[in-house]
């Protein structure tokens, strides 16, 4: 039995709030919905569960490492960072504050995700995404896939700026 009980779950949440997404540095991993749970068992062992945004997301290993380093930095000895696949990450888990920050950063935030039934019917249509810079709706999709797996590329015909849209999944 060591000195593990010094940390409360709230404190652990505060610590991991300092870990930002390496690909979207304005957001931390709680705002992203990547950090799912914090548990401290009776022996004081801390378990942090994180979930990947996209299956092949190369940032995941980096995030796992950053969480571990953060916990070590805070003198937590007995901990485990677990990858949790039981629930699929969705952009609906991103907080409203996070969406505002994304827009300010120049990335059009995701809207509410659609259900399966709509999908086949909506196959041929592309949705309209407002420009994060000038709020114009005169935008066009250039590619479903952008610089990272989670973003698509748009162009604004009003302010003539290319921008990225955080895909809604």
């Amino acid at each position, binding site marked *: 039995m060591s000195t593990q009980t010094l940390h409360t779950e709230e404190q652990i949440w505060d610590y991991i709030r300092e870990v930002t997404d390496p690909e979207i540095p304005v957001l931390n991993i709680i705002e992203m919905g990547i950090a799912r749970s914090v548990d401290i068992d009776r022996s004081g062992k801390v378990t942090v569960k994180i979930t990947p945004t996209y299956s092949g997301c190369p940032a995941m290993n980096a995030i796992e490492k950053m969480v571990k380093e953060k916990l070590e930095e805070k003198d937590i000895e007995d901990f485990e960072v677990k990858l949790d*696949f039981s629930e699929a990450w969705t952009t609906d888990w991103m907080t409203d504050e996070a969406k505002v920050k994304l827009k300010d950063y120049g990335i059009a935030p995701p809207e509410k995700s659609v259900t399966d039934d709509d999908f086949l019917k909506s196959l041929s249509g592309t949705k309209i995404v407002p420009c994060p810079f000038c709020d114009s709706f005169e935008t066009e999709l250039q590619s479903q896939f952008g610089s990272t797996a989670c973003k698509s590329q748009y162009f604004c015909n009003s302010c003539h700026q290319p921008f990225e849209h955080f895909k809604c999944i």
Partner: protein
Amino acid sequence: MNTTKELSVKESKIAYLLRLADDRLILGQRMSEWCGHGPVLEEDLALANMALDLIGHASSLYAYAAEVEDEGRDEDHFAYFRDDYEFTNLQLYELPKGDFAFTIARQFLFSSFSYFQYQQLKEAKDEQFAGMIDKHFKEIKYHLRHSRDWVLKLGDGTEESKKRMQEAFDELWMYTGELFYIDAVDEMMLAEGNGADLLSFKDEWKKLVEDTLTEATLSVPDWDQFMMRGSRTGMHTEHLGHMLAQMQFLRRSHPDADWK
């Protein structure tokens, strides 16, 4: 695989996970060959992104198969240390990448099939498996939208693009029969509440494919023509061995190498 032997639930589950994983690894590896060679920058990124998704899907399925197997092997074992006859991916996915039309046609067939398959698998009783599939399902929808858009654009495009798109489907057609191959592994998983009933969506899938080809002004090849067989029991085209040689040689030369 010895088909006369009764498979246990555990063996079936591992085989089922490996089939799904092999399909995705092999197709993902083929897609990754486009990296740096896409027809335009946006497509180069799109194809590399989708390859990354598929290899990610394979990785999580392999890792889960290793966990179910519980013999101390990991996902890298399945990817790098098996030979061609041990892979159970469909031949459809191992064919060389061809031209852009060929890649798009295959991607459309894969994504549309996966769309229906995942709709059922994401309801599996096994929560860990279902959660994994739910995630893959969300991503595959983007792949389906992407490939379908291109089938329409190229099919109903120039004389040259239409010709290539038609040739691609004509060439791929005899590999599509195996999408609906069913054996004891599928039956066992279905009975356990962890499998997809492939026949239940066969007509719906065919309709989506036919509607898309027709909208693209392409003709639908004959569904009743000769169809290739044997993939799920390890029979492959000559192309798989060559791909594995390239994919596996480094890891096999340095089996204990580590990134850390």
